[in-house]
Structure formats: structure tokens, C-alpha cells
């Protein structure tokens, strides 16, 4: 192990790294050292995001870290499942269109696969595939019987770009992300385009998650939102 620059504890930013070419600060000879790029400039932050360098858990063997651990937070066990269910509910209300800060109008739909499971050590699972399984009676019955959403294939449209991916609940991350790439030539160009699209898709999902948090942690959750979701599950439009 060889720390690259032990005296340098630069500001960590978890978010907000937009794909912006780094400004050329002159040749190596002109600068007279080996510094290729000045990475001290903070990237443009998305709304609602802040540095969390001291709020994230330490590494697996880092016993000396003073950072409070969020890794084993009890909410981590259910937050992803509830988020997926909320996403499904929101995708079926208002024609699946959401107005998101920073991204604008986003269309969202559950695509061609949704998986459920019960809790416990010996879980039962349901895997609905093909067509639009989220609209089927079986899907709602899975929720009625207390199953949680484990994975959903999601379609998303922002501006003229369509994304398709599978969203897992634990951990919540994108799998099988298909992006609307247009560049076919040039390694540099393909990397920039695909990283831009990956960060856009991830940023939208993050923003949706923050909307979910806004509702889930508000005082209106129990009296208003939760009953609405239950009515939707029961097929009772409210």
C-alpha cells in the first residue's frame, strides 16, 4: 500500500461530477512539476447535494476512522424495497410523468419484468415477465400478500433520451443499463458519452429517491401517502 499523497485530504464530493473537460493548465515543462491536472476544483454540484466525506462509513478494515457508519443502518434493510414500490406507484399516477429538479420532465414506467419476495430465511419469490407485468392482477396480489419488490425493469425518458435498466432493491443500483448512445467511433468520445449517460441515469434515480425520502419522512406519510398507496394496491382509485 502506498498512499499517493498522504498530506492531501482533498474535499470528497459524492455527487455532482458532471462531465466537463478539465481545463488545460499548460505543459508539464511550463509548470515545472509532474502535476498533470489540478483536481482541487470542486465539480458543479447538483441541487440538494453536499460533500459527505465525513458522513460515510470507513473502509472495511479502517478501525481508526472517525466517520459515523451508515452501512449498517436499520433503514438500509427496507429503504430500497419501499423506494421501488413508491417508484411503481408514482409511475402509475399522473401518466408516469414527474417534474424533477435539475432534469425537468421525466417519463417513467415499469417495463417488462418485476420480481417480488417475502421476507424471512425461506422466502417465496414471484417473477413476472413479459408484456407489462406491473399492470397485472398477479403483481398487485403479490403486494396484497405482503411481498416486497425486489427488482424491477424500468424505462425512463428524459428529453429525447430513453433509458432501460433493471433496478435492484438491495443494494439499489442499476443493472443492464441500456443507454441511447449515438457515438460509434473514437474511444474518448464513447467514454465521455457513456459516462455522461450513466451519470444522467443515476442522477435521475438519485433525484427520484430524494423525492421518495421527502415524502416518506414527512408528517403526511402516515395520514395521506401510505393510505393512497394502499388504495392503489387494492385497486381503489382515490
Amino acid at each position, binding site marked *: 500500500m502506498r498512499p*499517493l499523497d498522504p498530506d492531501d485530504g482533498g474535499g470528497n464530493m*459524492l455527487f455532482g461530477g458532471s462531465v466537463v473537460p478539465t481545463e488545460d493548465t499548460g505543459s508539464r515543462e511550463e509548470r515545472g512539476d509532474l502535476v498533470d491536472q489540478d*483536481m482541487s476544483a470542486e465539480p458543479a454540484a447538483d441541487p440538494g447535494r453536499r460533500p459527505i466525506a465525513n458522513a*460515510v462509513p470507513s473502509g472495511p478494515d479502517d478501525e481508526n476512522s472517525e466517520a459515523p457508519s451508515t452501512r449498517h443502518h436499520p433503514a438500509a434493510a427496507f*429503504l430500497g424495497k419501499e423506494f421501488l414500490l413508491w417508484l411503481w406507484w408514482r409511475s402509475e399516477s399522473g401518466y408516469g410523468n414527474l417534474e424533477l429538479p435539475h432534469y425537468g420532465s421525466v417519463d417513467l414506467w415499469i417495463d417488462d419484468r418485476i420480481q417480488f419476495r417475502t421476507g424471512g430465511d425461506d422466502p417465496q419469490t414471484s417473477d413476472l415477465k413479459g408484456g407489462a407485468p406491473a399492470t397485472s392482477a398477479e403483481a398487485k396480489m403479490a403486494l396484497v400478500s405482503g411481498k416486497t419488490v425486489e427488482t424491477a425493469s424500468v424505462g425512463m425518458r428524459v428529453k429525447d433520451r430513453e433509458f432501460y435498466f433493471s433496478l435492484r432493491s438491495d443494494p439499489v443500483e442499476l443493472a443492464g443499463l441500456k443507454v441511447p448512445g449515438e457515438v460509434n467511433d473514437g474511444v474518448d468520445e464513447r467514454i465521455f458519452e457513456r459516462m455522461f449517460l450513466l451519470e444522467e441515469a443515476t442522477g435521475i434515480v438519485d433525484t427520484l429517491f430524494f423525492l421518495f425520502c421527502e415524502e416518506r419522512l414527512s408528517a403526511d406519510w402516515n395520514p395521506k401517502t401510505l393510505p393512497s398507496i394502499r388504495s392503489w394496491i387494492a385497486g381503489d382509485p382515490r
Partner: protein
Amino acid sequence: MPLLSGAMGARRFLVQNGPASIRHELLLDSLQEAAFREPPSAARGGENMGWVSHGNLVVTEFTHEDTFYNQYMCFSLRVDNKRLPAKLLKGLLDLRIDAWKAETGRERCSSQIKTEIREQLELELYPKQLPSVQVYDICWDLSSHRLWLFSNSDRVSEKVRELFYRTFGYFLLPVGLVELVAGHERAGDWLPALDGIGHADYRPEVSR
């Protein structure tokens, strides 16, 4: 190569205490030191891993042009695994043991002899066996201290975290939902509120 084409499965990490100022040559040197190397002997099995160029898994010389793309540092983890087919090994081992019994006139073969025969067999078979090869792309955003691993596998994730720490001296912290909450400007309200909630029961009243 999900970094360049095809569907992407991606996991996010935060590079803990990532440096504000980076010397690319040092990063390349570190990468080079932990580059993938063929095992010293072809007659050994097991796992072997190291960094390779993101463009070609047999290229282990890292150049500035093929590694740095503005704020991104791109490379791949190559994991080779060489195993012998268990059923083939058992079949050949049984034949060798039978031959040993016939040759020595003994009815039983001790476990020590079995081990020796097995090791001899492995020495003969491993050089003929090609490893299974897996490659996982990595993109390190040096400006935001985020790292993208193009795999959703926990096992791969742990390998990358371990080798990344050994290579660069930085921990990779997986970014989960609670970390997202902790990174939001309303974390001061939301984190305590998270402490006070449990899994909601979404079942309609009639089914409870």
C-alpha cells in the same frame, strides 16, 4: 467492455480521502506495480488477478493516452481462475490409484499416496488447462472522487476494493441509499427521521 459498449451494470464508490491534487505519473506507476501478471508456473491452479488496460485485457503496460480521459481514469480488473474439471480429475485419479495398487500389489492406498498421485496429476494437467478469464471495467472520476465499477457482483466489488487499496492506498466506500441520504443537504433532518421509522405495511386493510 461495458465502458465502451453494451449494457452497463454499475456500482458506485466514493474514494475516501481522495487527493485534491493528483500526479498522473504516480497513478500510472501504482497501476503498473499491481498490473496483471501471468503466474510464474503454468502448473499451478487458483485465482490470479491484477489491473489491465481497459481496451485490451492482455495489455498490461499503461500509457497516459489509454488511461486518462479528461477527469476519468479508466482501467480494468482481470481475474483469471484456473481449475481442473473435478469429474475428469477424479476419473484420472481413480485410474492412477488402481495402477499404483496393481504395481505395488497392495489392496489399499494411503491418503498420503493419494495426495502425491493427485499432485502429480495436477502438475501434468494444469499446464494444458486455460484459465477462465473475467474482466471488469473501472472508471475513476478523479475530479469528484467517485469510482464506477462496471459490475453488480458483491464478490467482484470486494476484489476491487481490496486491490484498489493495495494499489493506491485509498478505501472505496460503496454508496448505498443511506449514504445518499447522508449526502443530501437535508441529511440533518432526514437521518434522525430514518432512525424513527420501520418497514411500512403496505397491505390494504382487508388483507391484514
